[in-house]
């Protein structure tokens, strides 16, 4: 049976070219980039090359604006904790209710342990940020506003360039968790007011364990990890040379494929989404369909539960993910869908399909072939599905 991987927002396959590029840095070129000998200097050169490749993808003005980290979560933590130290008496955070836990859990901890005031800006039924509330939350007390570029569950894109300018008007720093956006939509950071940006290698066909924080030149940064001069003292610890080399190659590949991502990949996503909605009643797309990542589709199926859907999909060779409570062991379904006020009848049955450039039209055909049977089978077993509610959706986003 052919395996169909549609969970690329969870992680991606490392591109074979990135693997090939990184391997020599485990064996022949094993040196420490800081060393004063040939072993070190050739690695140092490779790290610089990786930095420049990433700089190009982001459209950053200077290569030293890139600080390599262990991943997106570390980058988010560094950015927010740093702002609380460098912004003088400013001690409030403005963020959104739909951020990744890398930001939300940190904010919850800061509230609890340091008494930091955090403003959580809500979203509407389509997942669009309440910009008016954001504007009102910014004040002379705001140290940093941290708003994700694109949502990991629905793909909804937030207007970060505009949000960054609003933050600056209030004298606050602006950080964006762009883990899902980098490599999927074009960026030109030097043209924006964004101060800091987090990204993660494994979401764009580089390995796990490598990421970066973009820090605009002139923005003060307090390191999260201390102990060495690496990354100009902004992130101590011997450089992860193989990871950096692979991330550099992955960044270059992402740049080459960004058009493909926004044409062919987007078309596959749209065909899957439309096909599912046509074939399966009482289903709808969650998220802002007009302003979304090209690779993400979040389809909610009413009256059934996500884990059961995923288990049956897995049996049919399809990998996707769900925001259902049962897959995470918690009682609440996805905080993102709840913030959008998606009713419980559908929130538990929302499935996220996330594509990459490696997917094919056959993948879409396979999913469209098996999904109707899976949904029908589970609905037959559901006490809330009696046929009478067929066609009468409990939730009708205005665009549906």
């Amino acid at each position: 049976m052919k395996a169909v991987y549609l969970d690329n927002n969870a992680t991606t396959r490392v591109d074979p070219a990135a693997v090939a590029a990184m391997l020599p840095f485990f064996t022949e070129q094993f040196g420490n980039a800081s060393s004063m000998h040939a072993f070190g200097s050739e690695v140092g050169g490779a790290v610089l090359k990786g930095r420049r490749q990433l700089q190009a993808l982001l459209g950053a003005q200077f290569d030293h604006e890139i600080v390599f980290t262990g991943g997106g979560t570390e980058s988010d933590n560094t950015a927010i904790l740093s702002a609380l130290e460098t912004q003088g008496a400013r001690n409030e955070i403005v963020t959104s209710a739909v951020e990744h836990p890398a930001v939300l859990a940190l904010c919850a901890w800061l509230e609890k342990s340091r008494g930091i005031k955090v403003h959580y800006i809500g979203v509407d039924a389509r997942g669009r940020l309440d910009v008016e509330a954001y504007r009102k939350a910014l004040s002379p007390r705001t140290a940093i506003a941290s708003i994700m570029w694109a949502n990991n569950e629905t793909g909804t894109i937030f207007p970060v360039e505009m949000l960054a300018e609003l933050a600056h008007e209030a004298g606050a720093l602006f950080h964006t968790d762009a883990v899902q956006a980098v490599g999927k939509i074009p960026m030109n950071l030097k043209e924006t007011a964004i101060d800091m940006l987090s990204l993660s290698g494994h979401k764009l066909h580089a390995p796990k364990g490598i990421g970066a924080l973009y820090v605009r030149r002139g923005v003060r940064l307090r390191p999260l990890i201390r102990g060495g001069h690496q990354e100009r003292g902004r992130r101590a610890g011997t450089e992860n040379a193989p990871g950096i080399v692979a991330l550099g190659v992955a960044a270059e590949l992402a740049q080459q494929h960004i058009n493909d991502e926004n044409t062919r990949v987007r078309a596959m996503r749209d065909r899957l989404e439309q096909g599912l909605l046509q074939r399966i009643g009482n289903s709808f797309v969650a998220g802002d369909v007009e302003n979304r990542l090209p690779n993400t589709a979040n389809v909610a199926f009413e009256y059934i539960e996500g884990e059961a859907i995923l288990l049956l999909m897995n049996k049919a060779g399809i990998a996707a993910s769900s925001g259902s409570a049962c897959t995470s062991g918690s009682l609440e379904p996805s905080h993102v869908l709840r913030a959008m006020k998606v009713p419980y009848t559908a929130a538990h049955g929302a499935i996220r399909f996330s594509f990459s450039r490696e997917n094919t039209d056959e993948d879409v055909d396979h999913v469209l072939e098996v999904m109707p049977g899976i949904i029908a089978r589970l609905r037959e077993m559901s006490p809330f599905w009696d046929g009478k509610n067929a066609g009468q959706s409990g939730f009708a986003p205005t665009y549906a």
Partner: protein
Amino acid sequence: MWEYSDKVQEYFFNPKNAGTLEDASGVGEVGAIACGDALKLMIKVDPESERITDARFQTFGCGSAIASSSALTEIIIGKTLDEALKITNQDIADFLGGLPPEKMHCSVMGYEALRAAVANYRGEVWEDDHEEGALLCKCFGIDEGMIERAVRNNGLTSMEQVAHFTKATGSCGTCVEGVEAVLEKTNAEMVAEGLLDPAQAFVMGAVPVAPGRQQRKSPVAPPAPASSRMTTVQKIRVIEEVLEELRPALRNDGGDCELVDVEDNRVMVRMTGACVNCQLAAVTVQGIQGRLAERLGMPVRVIPVPAGK
């Protein structure tokens, strides 16, 4: 991905008795769509013998919820109502070859649905006491409500006691802070309601006033009158009986326990199998000790002796 047993997978992918039952004589509905799982159990009962002749289920929920529901129908068909009511959620989990700790509530849902269906058949009102608090101890599936109830009903004031009564925090220990918060909150409520001496209340981070206080009321106290009339042979007989009762639970976890010797109120046992080196052995020993004290009518101290001694 959850580690589902083969049996869970079998009952999820090919569930038995899914669907509705025409002219059901009892229907039990538990859970809610908001909670992420709900079960509607329909049973047909022969009025003469009170035997369940057929059962069907409809479930909204995850893989193990569907498997647990199906397992429940398989277990109860053919049983009388009284026999069926003896089934516990653990029986459902055992039938399925075990459930991941986070999924134990699925078996509880089956247990509750059965009670609801029988109550419905008998024309009684069934009270849903399904807890919706946050799952705190994932190792044992203990939620906030269970800890609160244990603390209130038993006047618990230390983390040690909470672990003994509920097992929460007893394994990986990552939930310690969450459980502490519940204990602190509940104790504070009890103080406010006049149910607890403020000096006894648990306060996070504070040094206990008298460490261990009540629960260490010297387990080696003079034997109670009831037991003083017991001969050693009688005591051994009772102890063996108690161990026999506890054995299935221990074996279930791959362990066992045998009586080695009895001296006055000291009961020497040997923990074997998975109990050896088990980080929860102390909890198990405490449990055995409590049960023995209750049945012997005297305080006893259970002392585990090393294997081979």
